[in-house]
């Protein structure tokens, strides 16, 4: 006897497509469920992506820099003793070469700030204002007075909340105090020239800005700095370039990307990324029951027809393919419409959704009052993969059942 005839895909496509529309109401209801499911998956992912993006940006804005260079001991002991030389030579050249778009160096040491009424532990940031602005400090955040004008600026810029705690105000003098490399207490009286606002109260209370040269002189460290911070076009691409910077920075330094510098932010990103997949799977698993039900009903209604096709010589495997193809067509239609609907819904929202009504709570998570959903092809691809894989897996049972019928039994059914 001849081998099995080769699969005639044409007849399978014709049968699957026409069978799909035999009970068009049922098909449309199932299609609507898949469309809504796909749309919900992508919309949810876009919201999460926007939220995470905002969290990362907010995190990077606290102390800007997608990668930072420190003394190897600095992260364990952020004292002035663990300082670096200002960048020069090969490192300086690398910092001024793409993909690095901006960089700056800072003196960053713990210290005390005292007004005539109160005192607080703070992080003293000796900065070059031009470099900070290039890295993302926004002048609009200065709510009173001005930002520093140069690294020699003798003024201080403090947060709104810190001013409140110290019961001081713009124009008043405060004393900042820290330790020199010789462990001697050093201090200086400075005038408040600006007050800034931040998303987080903790930021306003903890970070104070002074001119870098001014702080270096106070701490008696010459040109030494605590950190060199740099940024490029996209924080997600940091892995592509930070190892090159680490190589030229040398073994006497420690270069780390933002994911390592802010472990909390990174683990949040990982958790949320995995949550996305879990939620997509859960949404579609719920839908799968509907899909299985639709296909089981469709197969049950056609038992005699399936028996007839088998009697006429159709291979059982082809029956299985036919039911799977029917499911694939339904899923593909749902995916196309669902993806289109998601794009139509999300693209206009990319300019931002005002969520200030729940803003207070979100601030605790490092987010602002605006949410910027982001339509990403990765999310569309992921939801497509989840729907196709789970959908076809769910369809296997009814398809297998259909292919297992005995022709005479099937022909004898109602």
């Amino acid at each position, binding site marked *: 006897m001849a081998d099995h005839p080769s699969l005639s895909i044409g007849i399978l496509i014709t*049968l699957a497509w026409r069978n799909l529309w035999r009970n068009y109401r049922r098909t449309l209801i199932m299609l609507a469920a898949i469309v809504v499911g796909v749309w919900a998956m992508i919309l949810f992912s876009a919201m999460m992506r926007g939220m995470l993006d905002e969290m990362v940006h907010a995190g990077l804005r606290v102390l800007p820099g997608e990668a930072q260079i420190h003394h190897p001991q600095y992260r364990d002991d952020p004292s002035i003793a663990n300082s670096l030389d200002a960048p020069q030579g090969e490192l300086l050249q690398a910092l001024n070469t793409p993909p690095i778009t901006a960089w700056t160096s800072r003196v960053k040491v713990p210290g005390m700030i005292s007004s005539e009424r109160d005192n607080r532990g703070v992080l003293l940031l000796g900065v070059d204002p031009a470099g900070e602005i290039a890295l993302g400090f926004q002048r609009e955040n200065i709510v009173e007075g001005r930002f520093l004008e140069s690294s020699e600026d003798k003024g201080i810029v403090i947060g709104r909340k810190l001013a409140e705690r110290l019961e001081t105000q713009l124009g008043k003098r405060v004393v900042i105090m820290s330790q020199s490399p010789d462990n001697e207490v050093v201090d200086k009286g400075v005038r408040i020239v600006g007050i800034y606002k931040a998303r987080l109260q903790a930021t306003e209370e903890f970070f104070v800005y002074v001119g870098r040269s001014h702080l270096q002189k106070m701490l008696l460290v010459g040109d030494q700095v605590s950190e060199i911070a740099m940024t490029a076009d996209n924080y997600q691409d940091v892995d592509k370039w930070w190892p090159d910077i680490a190589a030229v920075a040398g073994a006497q330094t420690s270069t780390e990307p933002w994911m390592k510098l802010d472990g909390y932010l990174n683990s949040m990103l990982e958790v949320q990324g995995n949550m996305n997949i879990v939620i997509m799977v859960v949404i579609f698993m719920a839908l799968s029951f509907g899909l299985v039900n639709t296909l089981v009903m469709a197969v049950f209604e056609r038992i005699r027809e399936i028996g007839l096709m088998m009697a006429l010589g159709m291979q059982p495997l*082809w029956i299985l393919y036919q039911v799977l193809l029917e499911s694939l067509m339904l899923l593909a239609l749902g995916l196309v419409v669902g993806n289109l609907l998601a794009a139509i819904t999300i693209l206009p929202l990319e300019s931002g959704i005002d969520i200030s009504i729940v803003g207070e709570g979100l601030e605790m998570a490092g987010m602002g009052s605006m949410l910027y959903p982001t339509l990403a092809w990765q999310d569309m691809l992921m939801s497509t993969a989840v729907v196709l894989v789970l959908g076809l897996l769910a369809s296997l049972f009814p398809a297998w059942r259909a292919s297992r019928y005995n022709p005479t039994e099937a022909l004898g059914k109602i």
Partner: protein
Amino acid sequence: MSAVSCKNLCKTFHQGDQIIKGLDDVTIAINKGEFVCLSGPSGSGKTTLLNAMGGLDAPDSGEILVGDHRVDQLSKGKLADMRLQNIGFVFQAYNLIPVLTAQENIEFVMQVQGLPKSERRQKSKAILEEVGLAGHEDRRPAQLSGGQQQRVAVARAIVSDPTLVLADEPTANLDSVSAAQLMALFSSLNAERGVTFVIATHDQRVMEYCRRIIRMEDGKIIADEQQAGRGAGK
């Protein structure tokens, strides 16, 4: 030469605690070009024998030979192939695939056989004309009368020149005029194309067309008679 032969076929069914003999040591040979009726009351075993000959149902024991193929020894997939290449079926009802047109229903078997489209079109048009349904190509089964549906089923059964056509109560759902037209069609196909027909029926009008009548009762062959028959076959 035999189109189909069965030797010592046995088949039992279980109905509650009862064991019913569907086929009880049936031995029969049907030659190519014969026009045969299997007759007998309900439950006599004629449909069971027809299903066994067509490889739709496996016997408990015995041998079935269709052409050169030992049907009782074939796997499920090989049985499907054997049916596809050698046997045409006409059932009592639900003969056509509802979502396909008359022409597509006729082409179904040829498409599964893998014949090219041009050949399928040519053969299906010719056979539709032969069974008197020219102009009905694009109608779906629901748009055809019962008699027309059976004619499409007959056209599908013979279009790929099978060794054997098995028909199970093909006239049961037809009025007398349609039934006579269908039997006349069977007869002429048998006479002109030499197609072997085995028809299970208890309809006396159908039996009148057959040249050989095999009578069954309780799963056994009780008579095997030749008659003149109204058909023009052998």
